[in-house]
């Protein structure tokens, strides 16, 4: 019975919803139209007039194999042009009631808004676009890994707020074992310890039926307490325990020589490649394998899965532990992939941004990676803004991912749907 518990009517409603989502409904189209007009007016008002000079974007570094010329954009002209295009498009959508592709238009509008902002911020100065993209990918890595951990766990209907804590223990074990036995052993230990915390979460919520959110909160506090305690009692007095080797960037031959794309994607360290590979394998695992099908069934309708002979609890144990291992790997990025030493609470909320990326990516690994890239972009832009000395405070940019998540979760733009059985413990009758 594939539709156990669903009446025909419900299925019909679902089909309608599906149609609406695909082709966009009128309300959303109108919202998009108005937003585009607002963007346009905003751009010409704040970024269009009163700035002079060109914005120079450096695409290559002098020692690159192929050197591209700088991208020179006349700032004021570009922004006014974009603003007119946006207002025209928005007005067209509103007047013609163009209901198709509204999300696409909105995405394009947001993208243009960001380019206008960059052009405005760089006007009269120069700015390395390639460096920025490289930083974006680097900063997106832990977020993407945290999101992946979230997906693995929530796809089997177990909410995992504790990812932040798992990142933290991963970072800590990576630093300590990396200092003792070298980077690779450190990485392995980070994955193991992350996995153990994942297992702990699974044990608490499955065996002891602790509320999933409470267990996540407890794991975060526990991870913070443990790592801070061990740091202040051991690492402070023995600095040699907190001096791990760093995974250096690996240049992939030929590919890394491609201008812009090469430095962005093919001159990165092991963690970036690992994250990309993990996203691809997880996508394959969840959507193309039999095990993945069972996993999704456990998340959507555990009772049906159980009836068909799937061991719901063991699927949950395995995937939540896997999630912990992925988070441990992501945590090692903070120490082994970046600075080589552990500091208290160094993950700074990346686990939560990862959860946001997961929601944005609609519980799909590739979608989550894209969302992580956007958040990574916001993160690196925040750093660059300080260099460009714009009057916009960087804190607001840092807030953008969180605000975007709230807007998204509230369903104002797009829809988010979690796996159906999420948060409910499965009790076999």
């Amino acid at each position, binding site marked *: 019975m594939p539709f156990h518990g669903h009446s025909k009517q419900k299925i019909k409603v679902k089909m309608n919803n599906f149609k609406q989502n695909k082709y966009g409904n009128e309300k959303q189209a109108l919202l998009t139209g108005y937003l585009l007009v607002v963007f346009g007016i905003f751009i010409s008002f704040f970024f269009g007039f009163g700035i002079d000079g060109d914005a120079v974007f450096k695409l290559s570094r002098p020692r690159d194999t192929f050197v591209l010329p700088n991208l020179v954009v006349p700032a004021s002209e570009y922004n006014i042009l974009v603003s007119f295009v946006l207002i025209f498009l928005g007005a067209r959508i509103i007047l013609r009631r163009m209901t198709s592709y509204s999300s696409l238009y909105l995405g394009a509008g947001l993208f243009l808004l960001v380019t206008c902002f960059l052009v405005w911020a760089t006007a009269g100065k120069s700015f390395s676009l390639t460096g920025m993209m490289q930083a974006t990918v680097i900063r997106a890595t832990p977020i993407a890994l945290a999101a992946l951990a979230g997906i693995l766990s929530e796809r089997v209907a177990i909410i995992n*707020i504790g990812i932040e804590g798992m990142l933290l223990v991963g970072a800590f074990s990576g630093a300590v074992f990396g200092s003792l036995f070298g980077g690779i052993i450190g990485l392995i230990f980070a994955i193991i310890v992350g996995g153990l915390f994942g297992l702990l979460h699974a044990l608490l919520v499955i065996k*002891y*039926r*602790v509320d999933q959110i*409470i267990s996540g909160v407890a794991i975060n506090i526990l991870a913070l307490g*443990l790592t801070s305690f061990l740091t202040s009692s051991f690492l402070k007095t023995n600095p040699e325990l907190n001096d791990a080797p760093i995974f250096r960037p690996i240049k992939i031959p030929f590919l890394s020589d491609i201008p812009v794309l090469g430095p962005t994607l093919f001159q990165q360290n092991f963690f970036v490649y690992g994250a990309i590979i993990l996203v691809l394998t997880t996508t394959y695992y969840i959507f193309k394998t039999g095990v993945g099908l069972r996993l999704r069934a456990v998340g959507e309708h555990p009772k049906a899965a159980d009836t068909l002979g799937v061991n719901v609890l063991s699927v949950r144990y395995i995937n939540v532990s896997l999630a912990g291992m992925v988070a441990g790997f992501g945590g090692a990025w903070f120490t082994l992939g970046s600075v080589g030493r552990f500091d208290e609470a160094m993950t700074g909320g990346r686990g939560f941004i990862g959860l946001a990326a997961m929601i944005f990516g609609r519980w799909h690994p590739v979608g989550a990676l894209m969302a992580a890239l956007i958040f990574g972009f916001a993160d690196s832009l925040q750093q660059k803004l300080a260099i460009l000395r714009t009057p916009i405070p960087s*804190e607001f940019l840092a807030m953008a991912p969180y605000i975007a998540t709230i807007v998204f*979760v509230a*369903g104002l733009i797009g829809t988010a749907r979690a796996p159906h059985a999420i948060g409910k*413990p499965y009790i076999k009758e």
Partner: protein
Amino acid sequence: MRDYLKKKIISENFDFEEILLIPILATLLALIIGCLFLLATGETFENILVAFTNLFIGSFGSLNAISETCTAATPLIFAALGIALAFRAGLFNIGAEGQIIIGGMAAVIIGFSIDFLPIWLHLPLALLFGAIFGALYAAIAGWLKATTGAHEVISTIMLNLIALRLLDYFLRLPVIQKEGRNDPISKSVLETAQLPQILSFIEPQLRLHSGFILMLVAVVLVYWLLFHTTIGFEFRSTGSNPNAAQYAGIKASLTIILVMGIAGALAGLAGSNQIMGVLGRATPGFSASIGFDAIAVALLGRSHPIGVLFAGLLFGALIAGGRLMQVKAGVSIDLITIIQALIIVFIAAPLLVRNAVPWAFKTKDKS
């Protein structure tokens, strides 16, 4: 999930084992595991004894220790009352931390900017603003839940992170930043907006401030609100069975916004208390994860105002005693964080407690 949660956290009838025995055993077990953890990290027996003795001396051993315990407990209990109230209405308010920050910011701004009011006007005004801004901030999550169904856990997590960034921003604004300082720190609140100390007539260094009395009043008020008013009944029925509440004519969406608002006001008061009674100004870490500890307090107190009061005092004792423990025994105060996490785990998993000490229980686990 919620039904499950409620059954464990909230007991309608007084049940000795559920309400008293499990919290006490959970605390003891957490302390014992803390001990074992210290042993595992290579501390000697004598030093652990010294550590735990000082944990006790630092929390209850002297008048000063008791004053410190109560001072640390005050904001925890304020925030935990809000979380408990939300639990009762079936909402999970993880956002206390953010509400504390926003409420505290509002209090500090009123506290230093208005210099013409007498203390009996200025003090309540600053507290009021702290409460209002905390309430408004929490109400965002409530409003989103009520109108769009956005889950309050996600939105409050995000609001926490937004509040942290807002605090960073505000503390660097020239109007708020202390003159002549480059680090993010606010101006100090004026004397007319400081909660007066209540034990300084005995010894001037006793820090306990009148926020403690306000907190006791809040406990009574929340108790009265929950169990002796119609609104409280509506809160509880929305929590225990939203559908039945809806059929009975209770407006679920209004209840959600109201509950979050009150929870936020209490958290805002927690923040204002820290600012106006202890710190005197705002710094980036002034919330000191009170909002997260308060979740543990609410759980330990079984979401009952009286339970929250005692659980908060216990946590205050752990914090106050932890400081002395760190000084005297060289054991990092982060041990307290570990113990708190363990308490949450044991409270949320009574089965673990029952398995650990089966001889203490007469009845079987009913859940």
